[in-house]
């Protein structure tokens, strides 16, 4: 085999000009391929590691209360964290995340800003994370750590560009106006403790406050959580799997409020259940329940329904249009929960709700439920627990509403439109991975990969045409030589292999040269600095530089692909050469 290599290499250098021309074409093609791939991978790295992880986390859990996308709150944060710990124990960090639009007024200048909460020294921020943070937010004046300074009024950090826009300096005060989670307009004074230069233009738009400050300003209580962003070790591999697992774990239990129903001075233990008021649930109520009495208003507007069982009616004497009050023990704090209800209907016995139960329309139920989160849960015994087999069970609401898993950003947007339009009363819990929340951004990576694929196709044709033409000429020129070596005793297969080795070597040397060229070009291009202040494409740059991320695996794959294409392309001309009759080849004259 060695002598085949020797002959092949020498033949390669013998036709120097031809080899250089074809080799250059393959090398340039390879360089473009490696470059395009490294660029696409670089962008994807920036998107995943720098942008997506900040904007939406690798996995996110979002809450929407009352159908209002700005009201992102869940009142039993510990419960959600417990589920996260149980379902995805390998999660690196769980961050609370808030982003609220606000109008900011600086020194005679105003601008729209996003108030973003962050905790630069929170749990799980290791040395590596801190380094990354320091790299992504270069402190120009002041210190990021001062966001946690409680002696300063609402410390804030903002980008140099934003400071310029608002005409403010370090220690100046910025006034902001925003809407809190109760829908009320609030105003606050923010003190600038740090002016920084973000590595990415995308991160220059918000102003950064400590998460605790933002939560306080927006009216979150200590048990409330805003959105939760989960950072995981290997997001590309695990993000979707973790999100699916977490989604399965967040299936809501039936919402129950066990409390004391008071009427005419006497009390009785009852369980309140939420009656969903979507059309399917209302149809279910109509078909599965019989009423012994109901108000005219209840028939007209079932969305205001408060239905009690016949047995409860007998115990308490409650009739339609009667008013009763409910009081119950809250899960957090000493303050009890309560509500005033007007009975609209009495369910006839045999409807599956025979017992001390009140079905309350979801608007009134959740208003009460979320106002003071009850201590009772469906898992513990109470005055009434419905049989899961009864016809109307599906019409009872859960402690929250779990949104189905979205597959794309478009699906996510559709979901939030639906939440806003339908005005779901239960808190909607949505679990997303970066693949869905950033699918539109990731389409960019897809487009770049398409460009890489197009490069492969172009390269394929360059190799195809180049190799076939070169080999045809070579075979024509070397026909007598082929005749000679066949006459001496070289087998067909060795003749064929010598041509394949020659082509493979040319492709390999060219591909390696092309890779080297690509790396030199990458180095050169990454030295250029682009000014991207007003260009949204600047988000794809790191510190104003193009970021390339070539991988050993991809480079090896491309080299093997190119050598493979060249050898496969050379196979047929080489076989043709090998099958030449020795006598005819020896008779050949150019």
């Amino acid at each position, binding site marked *: 085999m060695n*002598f085949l290599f*020797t*002959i092949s290499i*020498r*033949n390669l250098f*013998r036709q120097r000009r031809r080899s250089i021309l074809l080799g250059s074409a393959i090398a340039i093609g390879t360089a473009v391929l490696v470059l395009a791939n490294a660029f696409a991978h670089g962008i994807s790295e920036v998107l995943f590691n720098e942008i997506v992880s900040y904007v939406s986390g690798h996995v996110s859990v979002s809450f929407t209360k009352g159908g209002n996308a700005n009201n992102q709150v869940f009142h039993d944060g510990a419960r959600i964290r417990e589920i996260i710990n149980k379902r995805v124990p390998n999660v690196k960090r769980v961050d609370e995340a808030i982003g609220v639009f606000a109008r900011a007024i600086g020194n005679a200048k105003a601008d729209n800003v996003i108030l973003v909460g962050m905790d630069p020294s929170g749990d799980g921020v290791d040395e590596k994370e801190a380094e990354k943070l320091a790299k992504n937010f270069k402190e120009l004046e002041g210190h990021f750590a001062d966001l946690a300074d409680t002696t300063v009024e609402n410390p804030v950090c903002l980008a140099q560009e934003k400071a310029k826009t608002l005409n403010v300096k370090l220690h100046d005060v910025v006034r902001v106006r925003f809407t809190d989670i109760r829908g009320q307009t609030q105003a606050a004074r923010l003190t600038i403790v740090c002016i920084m230069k973000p590595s990415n233009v995308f991160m220059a738009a918000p102003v950064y406050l400590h998460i605790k400050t933002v939560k306080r300003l927006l009216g979150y209580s200590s048990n409330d959580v805003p959105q939760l962003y989960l950072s995981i070790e290997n997001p590309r591999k695990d993000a979707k799997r973790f999100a699916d697992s977490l989604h399965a774990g967040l299936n809501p239990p039936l919402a129950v409020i066990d409390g004391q129903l008071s009427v005419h001075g006497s009390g009785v233990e009852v369980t309140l259940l939420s009656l969903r008021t979507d059309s399917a649930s209302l149809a279910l109520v109509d078909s599965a329940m019989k009423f012994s009495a109901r108000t005219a208003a209840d028939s007209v507007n079932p969305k205001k329904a408060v239905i009690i069982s016949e047995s409860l009616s007998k115990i308490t004497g409650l009739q339609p249009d009667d008013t009763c009050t409910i009081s119950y023990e809250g899960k957090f704090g000493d303050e009890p929960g309560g509500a005033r209800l007007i009975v609209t209907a009495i369910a006839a016995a045999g409807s599956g709700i025979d017992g001390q139960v009140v079905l309350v329309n979801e608007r009134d139920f959740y208003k009460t439920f979320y106002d003071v989160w009850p201590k009772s849960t469906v898992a513990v015994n109470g005055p009434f627990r419905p049989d899961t087999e009864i016809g109307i069970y599906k019409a009872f609401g859960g402690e929250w509403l779990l949104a189905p898993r979205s597959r794309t950003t478009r699906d996510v947007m559709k979901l939030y439109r639906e939440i806003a339009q339908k005005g779901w009363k239960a808190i909607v819990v949505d679990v997303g991975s970066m693949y869905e929340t950033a699918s539109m951004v990731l389409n960019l990576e897809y487009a770049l990969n398409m460009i890489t694929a197009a490069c492969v196709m172009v390269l394929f044709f360059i190799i195809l045409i180049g190799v076939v033409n070169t080999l045809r000429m070579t075979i024509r020129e070397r026909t*007598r*030589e082929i*005749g*000679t*070596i*066949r*006459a*001496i*005793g*070289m*087998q*067909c297969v*060795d003749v064929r292999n010598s041509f394949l080795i020659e082509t493979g070597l040319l492709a390999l040397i060219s591909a390696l040269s092309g890779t080297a060229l690509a790396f030199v070009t990458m180095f050169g291009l990454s030295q250029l600095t682009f000014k991207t202040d007003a260009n949204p494409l600047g988000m794809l740059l790191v510190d104003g530089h193009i970021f390339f991320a070539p991988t050993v695996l991809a480079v090896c794959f491309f080299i093997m692909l190119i050598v493979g294409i060249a050898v496969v392309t050379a196979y047929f001309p080489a076989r043709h050469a090998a099958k030449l*009759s*020795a*006598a005819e080849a*020896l008779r050949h004259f150019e």
Partner: protein
Amino acid sequence: MDIIDIKGLKKNYALGSTTVHALRGVDLTIAKGDFMSIIGPSGSGKTTLLNVIGCIDNATEGSVKVSGREITKLNDREITSMRLHHIGFIFQTFNLIPVLDTLENVEFPLLLMRKLSKQDIRKRAEKLIEEVGLREYIKHRPAELSGGQRQRVAIARALVTNPDIVLADEPTANLDSVTGEQILNLMKEMNRIENTTFIFSTHDANVLKYARSVVKIRDGLIVKEA
């Protein structure tokens, strides 16, 4: 003992729409160790006869036995192996491999055989190069050698596998008369030393004096054996 036994050999070529009858029924036997010349004018069928004997071309009809084996019934792999192990070739235009030097050209058939060790191959090639008088040109490529020197390399290459037969198609045609004589003397010397059968074609009457036996061919038929 006959090393070649040919009976009723016919070889036709298709040349466009016409058929050329290159050999029209040749009967010939050649003894081992012979130094035979095939003589005839251009187009008489000398090269075709050598090609068929050398297993380069196949017969249209008839029987050809080389070293006791009927070669007309062999497949491509067997016939290539036959050429490698039993036959050596010397061409009119030398046909050396241009990218290999003298030593490598001579070693080449032995490398194809994949039988001997690298050291044995080198030893055998160097011995033959020495015998053809090219010791100091061992690292020269064909382009750096004269016509006579190239033909010497070709002779060494033909003999390196210790073949039963060496076929030479007009080996002196591209050489001046002095060099031609030297080559023929060398071939004769090799024939004597190695006892290898040499068959060479020529249309030069002066070359005949070197041959131990002569076959005259005309229009695809043997007209005289001496």
